[in-house]
């Protein structure tokens, strides 16, 4: 029975010590420690938040960068495409000009050739006419060199007329 009979002296000391302990610890220990722990927890959560924010920012920056890159790439592609187009156009144009030039040259050459030909023909005709006249002169001269010949010719011509 002694075991479960409370003892007044010990109860008094326990109560005194515990209440003193509660008072001192609450005033000098729990409050500073809890506030320190709270501050730290707050700073940790703040830092975490900040980190998250920074990460989000970085992500947006990254996406911005990506957009910029995409734009730049698109621009580059456009420039390259334009350049290619221009180049092909230029090539085409130069090809065309070359072709027309060549054609022009060919036509002019052909014309020149024709002209030459025509002039050559004309000259030839003139030459031939000259030659024929000379020949005719020679022939006429020959035909009319003697009286007989003149007579024969006139006879012939007369016979020709007679035929008519």
């Amino acid at each position: 029975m002694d075991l479960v009979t409370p003892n007044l002296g010990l109860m008094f000391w326990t109560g005194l010590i515990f209440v003193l302990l509660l008072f001192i610890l609450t005033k000098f220990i729990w409050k500073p420690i809890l506030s320190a722990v709270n501050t730290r927890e707050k700073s940790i959560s703040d830092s975490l938040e900040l980190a998250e924010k920074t990460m989000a920012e970085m992500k947006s920056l990254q996406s911005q960068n990506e957009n910029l890159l995409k734009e730049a790439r698109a621009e580059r592609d456009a420039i390259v495409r334009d350049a290619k187009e221009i180049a092909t156009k230029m090539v085409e144009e130069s090809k065309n000009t070359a072709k027309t030039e060549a054609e022009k040259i060919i036509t002019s050459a052909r014309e020149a050739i024709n002209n030459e030909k025509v002039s050559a023909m004309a000259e030839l005709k003139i030459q031939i006419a000259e030659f024929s006249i000379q020949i005719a002169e020679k022939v006429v001269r020959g035909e009319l060199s003697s009286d007989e010949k003149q007579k024969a010719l006139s006879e012939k011509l007369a016979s020709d007329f007679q035929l008519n």
Partner: protein
Amino acid sequence: MIYGSIAAIGAGLAVLGAGLGIGRIGGSAMDAIARQPEAAGKIQGAMIIAAALIEGVALFGVVVGMLGGAK
């Protein structure tokens, strides 16, 4: 030769009851944890509280046993 007091039997019976009770709690808690491993913390807390309550009742028995033993 038999010696000792009847209080010892009482203490033994109290321990038997508490053992059965805490055993059941432990078993059920194991089942619950196996079923829902993510709630293990909460189940453990509830288990300890329930075990403590049972143990408290058993200790009443032990104290009464001790009183009988110590006269």
